[in-house]
């Protein structure tokens, strides 16, 4: 390259291409995103945070919580699963024969080995997972045929991955989860656990406040620093204040004193409790577990 101009042009082209692809492209595609619809329901997702929770995001930012905590659950796999939930009046051996007769169907041919293996390993008690894999046609066919045979099945889409198995999410985090966050606090290091569904794991605001004041009072080997500056220790009146923290003796202040959260602490706790990314979406489908008692 002989002149400054050629260097300038080459650099401009290279930079411009990546700007178009990684800055303009995502903004054009995702920048105007609106609320999306939860699968199999009329609810919209996400819901705007209100009140203290909105301010809590700014507290989260101001103290750099994203330096140790992430808010992104990862998913490494997905499987279509069909489980037999009731034998009806059939016996286990009859069921095995019935299912084996179905395996000649064209849509079930490829999966027949896995299904036979599951049947052979079966202990005779429901529920029995007949198939768990990537082929939705297998699940659809089995569901139809078994229902026609008077048996009850449960077809589910199951999201899997180490994060999800650890209870850090029920599905992976997607763009829709961060729609109303300014700034988005995804985090890049898990010195502390992931927080994308902390509002489901620890929904109690008082737990969050106590954890901020004295992390080791709740998690013995926690390496989280104590955030005592978010609280005021003051003289207790005749009655303890309604929002005073209830602490175990080794973490409680001296007698006659009580620990009261400041506004920032309350906002941060409200924000944390609002983190509940559990809605199934089109881009992250899964079958939620519904408990009807």
């Amino acid at each position, binding site marked *: 390259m002989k002149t400054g101009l050629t260097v300038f042009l080459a650099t401009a082209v290279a930079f411009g291409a990546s700007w178009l692809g990684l800055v303009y492209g995502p903004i054009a595609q995702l920048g105007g995103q609106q609320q999306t619809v939860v699968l*199999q329901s009329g609810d919209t997702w996400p819901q705007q945070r209100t009140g203290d929770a909105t301010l809590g995001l700014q507290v989260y930012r101001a103290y750099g919580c994203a330096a140790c905590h992430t808010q992104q659950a990862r998913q490494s796999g997905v499987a279509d699963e069909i489980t037999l939930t009731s034998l009806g009046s059939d016996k286990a051996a009859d069921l095995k024969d019935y299912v084996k007769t179905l395996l000649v169907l064209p849509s079930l041919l490829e999966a027949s080995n896995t299904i036979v293996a599951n049947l052979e390993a079966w202990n005779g008690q429901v529920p029995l997972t007949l198939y768990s894999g*990537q082929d939705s046609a297998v699940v659809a066919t089995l569901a139809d045929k078994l229902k026609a045979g008077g048996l009850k099945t*449960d077809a*589910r*889409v199951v999201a899997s991955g180490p994060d999800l198995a650890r209870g850090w999410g029920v599905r992976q985090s*997607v763009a829709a989860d961060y729609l109303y966050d300014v700034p988005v606090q995804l985090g890049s290091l898990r010195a502390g656990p992931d927080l994308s569904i902390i509002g489901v794991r620890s929904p109690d605001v008082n737990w969050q406040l106590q954890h901020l004041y004295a992390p080791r009072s709740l998690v013995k080997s926690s390496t989280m620093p104590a955030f005592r500056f978010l609280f005021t220790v003051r003289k207790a009146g005749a009655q303890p204040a309604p929002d005073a923290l209830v602490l175990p003796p080794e973490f409680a202040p001296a007698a006659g004193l009580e620990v009261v959260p400041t506004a920032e602490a309350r906002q941060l706790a409200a924000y944390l409790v609002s983190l509940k990314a559990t809605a199934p979406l089109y*881009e992250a489908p899964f079958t939620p577990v519904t408990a009807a008692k």
Partner: protein
Amino acid sequence: MNDENKSCCPPPEAEPTATRSAAPMWIIVVTLMVLFFGGLYLDSHSGWFDAKVYAPYNSAEMLESFQPLSGAAQAAAQGKKVYEAVCGICHGVDGAGKPGQAPPLAGSEWVTAKGMSRLTHIPLQGLNGPIKVAGKDWTLNMAAMGAALPDSDLAAVLTYIRNSWGNKAGEVSADDVKKVRDAIGGHPQPMSGDDLTKMPE
């Protein structure tokens, strides 16, 4: 000027020069190969720039194939939602009913009957008491709360109440609901408890 660096190679004050040699052919070949195989990777893993395709899904078709089927679990979720919005106000979220408001559905023989058509008439037509439910008499009036619901939603609600709170009975499909709705015809009148008792299941 004192060069304090008296090591192996004292830096001369002459400015560095460069030879003219070009990039060797092998690195150009490697670059082209990486461009190609990387392109293959991009083809199979990028979801073709679809905004909805997230890893581990590789394409829009794969994502579509994993959308949950309408099956028992999905109907239950929908049924629960509709029940809590429409029926739970009077019959209770736990199906226990409220004295003076609505009889219980949990353990009700009308709900758990083997056939579903008699049960389906109740939300589609309305019911005026007295009616005996689980041994107790209830003299209340129920409007046709399910008449405005689509068939699939009503089927989901009925399936839900037949399989919750200890009840164990069969499903109700949208087709079944449609049959009953057609049989009732337009302008349904609320039934009385006697009418209901006389109706086949």
